[in-house]
């Protein structure tokens, strides 16, 4: 009994502690020189996905030393991606924290939508970055994120397009339409699957857009009627063919790494990637055979950008902005554009760059097994509103898995 009373006493004391949050820092009126001065000598905590050794090397070997040398900023890169990041920032807000543990974060996909939902981002700040003058805001896949205008709340960092990856020996002629895919899987059962995660949902979104009539068909706000109409066709397509999918469609892999490995081992004929340059990276790392190649469906695939965001509660927004500005500089964008470094598409409008940088970009080592961006640009589809992905993920379980 006494333990229960002591326990309750502690609960009530703990529940009472509720410090009011500080007003977050607002640097919107500061000029760039002042921001650089504020950032000088500071530490910036950057949270990003660290699962790719090439990206890690780019950050550790190039970015970290460069921002130290040029701006005297110590950049500390921490692990955290997508949902984990959202959960962390959400918890900080819910618990009235006065400062965030993160100053700059890599935002990908629906994360921006979620962070806007909980008002966790600082901004607008992009216009204050000197290098933002080079960003290709004319490209809707850069200016908008999941159909939402970024409005300077997140800074574009890289641009990628989803591709299908196949092996030219096993599959000399890959299917380029949904109808051809249907023929293919029936002729080659057990060789295709859809990962039940972000990239798989990106493929489904592309198919949904194709069924809805093609490019721009699902632009704008989420439309329930359109979703019902075209998702019904989508589930019908999958369900009538899933008996020919891997494991007869009774299960779907939970993560893309498994699909990559099954493809590498010849268990599957296809894998997929959100990064159109990934097949070259994977071949260089000896994960895929040199006969692997990437392509996009005739009806198109989703092209989207990844961004940098600054949490509302960051205590070093100046440092974060200086680092973000560096990451969108021609120097940094060119470095990661190189397929031997990362192969990530640039968000810069090359026509706006000084001539010497334009030449550098033109002379970057070419992709070998990945398609050139120019060749697939006309098949680039914009990300539809985030609710489409949320619904596809939920309904895939209800309509396909169960």
């Amino acid at each position, binding site marked *: 009994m006494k333990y229960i009373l002591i326990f309750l006493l502690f609960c009530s004391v703990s529940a009472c502690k509720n410090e009011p949050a500080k007003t977050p820092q607002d640097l919107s009126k500061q000029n760039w020189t002042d921001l650089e001065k504020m950032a000088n000598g500071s530490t910036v905590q950057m949270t990003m996905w*660290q699962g790719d050794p090439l990206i*890690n090397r780019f950050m550790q070997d190039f970015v970290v030393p460069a921002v130290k040398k040029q701006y005297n900023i110590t950049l500390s890169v921490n692990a955290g991606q997508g949902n984990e990041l959202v959960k962390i920032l959400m918890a900080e807000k819910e618990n009235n924290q006065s400062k965030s543990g993160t100053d700059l974060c890599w935002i990908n996909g629906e994360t921006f939508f979620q962070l806007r939902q909980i008002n966790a981002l600082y901004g607008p700040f992009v216009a204050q970055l000197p290098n933002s003058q080079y960003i290709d805001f004319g490209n809707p896949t850069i200016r908008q994120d999941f159909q939402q205008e970024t409005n300077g709340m997140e800074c574009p960092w890289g641009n990628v397009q989803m591709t299908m990856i196949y092996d030219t020996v096993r599959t000399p002629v890959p299917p380029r339409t949904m109808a051809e895919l249907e023929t293919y899987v029936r002729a080659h059962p057990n060789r295709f699957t859809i990962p039940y995660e972000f990239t798989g949902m990106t493929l489904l979104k592309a198919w949904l857009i194709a069924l809805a009539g093609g490019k721009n068909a699902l632009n704008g706000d989420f439309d329930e009627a359109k979703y019902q109409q075209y998702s019904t066709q989508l589930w019908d397509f999958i369900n009538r063919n899933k008996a020919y999918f891997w494991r007869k469609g009774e299960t779907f892999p939970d993560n893309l790494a498994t699909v990559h490995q099954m493809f590498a081992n010849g268990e599957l004929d296809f894998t997929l990637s959100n990064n159109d340059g990934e097949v070259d990276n994977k071949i260089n790392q000896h994960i895929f055979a040199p006969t692997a190649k990437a392509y996009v469906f005739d009806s198109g695939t989703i092209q989207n950008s990844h961004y940098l965001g600054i949490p509302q509660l960051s205590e070093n927004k100046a440092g974060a902005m200086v680092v973000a500005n560096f990451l969108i500089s021609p120097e940094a964008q060119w470095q990661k554009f190189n397929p031997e470094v990362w192969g990530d598409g640039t968000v810069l409008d090359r026509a706006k760059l000084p001539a010497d940088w334009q030449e550098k970009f033109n002379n970057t080592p070419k992709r070998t097994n990945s398609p050139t961006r120019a060749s697939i640009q006309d098949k680039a589809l914009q990300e539809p509103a985030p609710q489409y992905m949320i619904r596809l993920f939920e309904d895939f379980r209800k309509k396909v898995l169960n």
Partner: protein
Amino acid sequence: MRKAILTVLSLLFLMPIGVLILLSVAESWRFPMLLPQAITFDYWKDFFRSSGNMNHSIGLSLLLAVTVAGAVTMAGFFTSKLVQKQENKRFLLQLAYFPYSFSPVIYAFCVQFLFLRLGLSGTFAGVWIAQFLLAFPFAVLLFSSHWTPVLFDMEQMVATLGGNRWQAFREVLFPMSKSILMLAFFQTFLISWFDYGLVSVIGVGKIQTLTVRTYQFVGESNVYFAAIASLLIIWPPLMLWWVNRKFIFV
């Protein structure tokens, strides 16, 4: 019979290690090859070059695991002894199961708010405390079957013969408890060493232990890096045990 058991167990348990070693040096190892087509050490070089301060992560993991295991083992040992002497020891032991009602990841999500409010989120101290809280009840439970009336009687006998508590511990309890203490240390070391849920949630990516780094590679398709990271995670516990068997307890 013993030889047969040893042979089967050795094959069963060393085979996975062999798979990891081969994967870490296989230039190409695709189906249906039983062995890699060629060997290369490039992955090891690339791993340490591109993984940024892996030594720091290894050191951090070791520091965390050794200190947490040491503290938990001693705290658990004496707490368990005290619990056994209580009238309501059954209830007190049942309480120790409470934190294990769910996996560490879910446990971490539940207690995250507490660490945020206490300013411990993203700190070494916060992760240390979180791991201590998770491992401590385990140690109490592990030791609960160790405290027999015989042990208490022998401790009492030391007191009767004029010995103090430190002598009782040094001359009686510790020698008789060596194997369980080592098992508890080992198991709680592993709880900390292998922990991902608490470190990633309470550490918010700032406390970059080896497991946090490893999980990223295992979750990606780079099987070679995943194999290397896995070997780095496995070898300290193996070494710890070998040292224990060879030099501490004959």
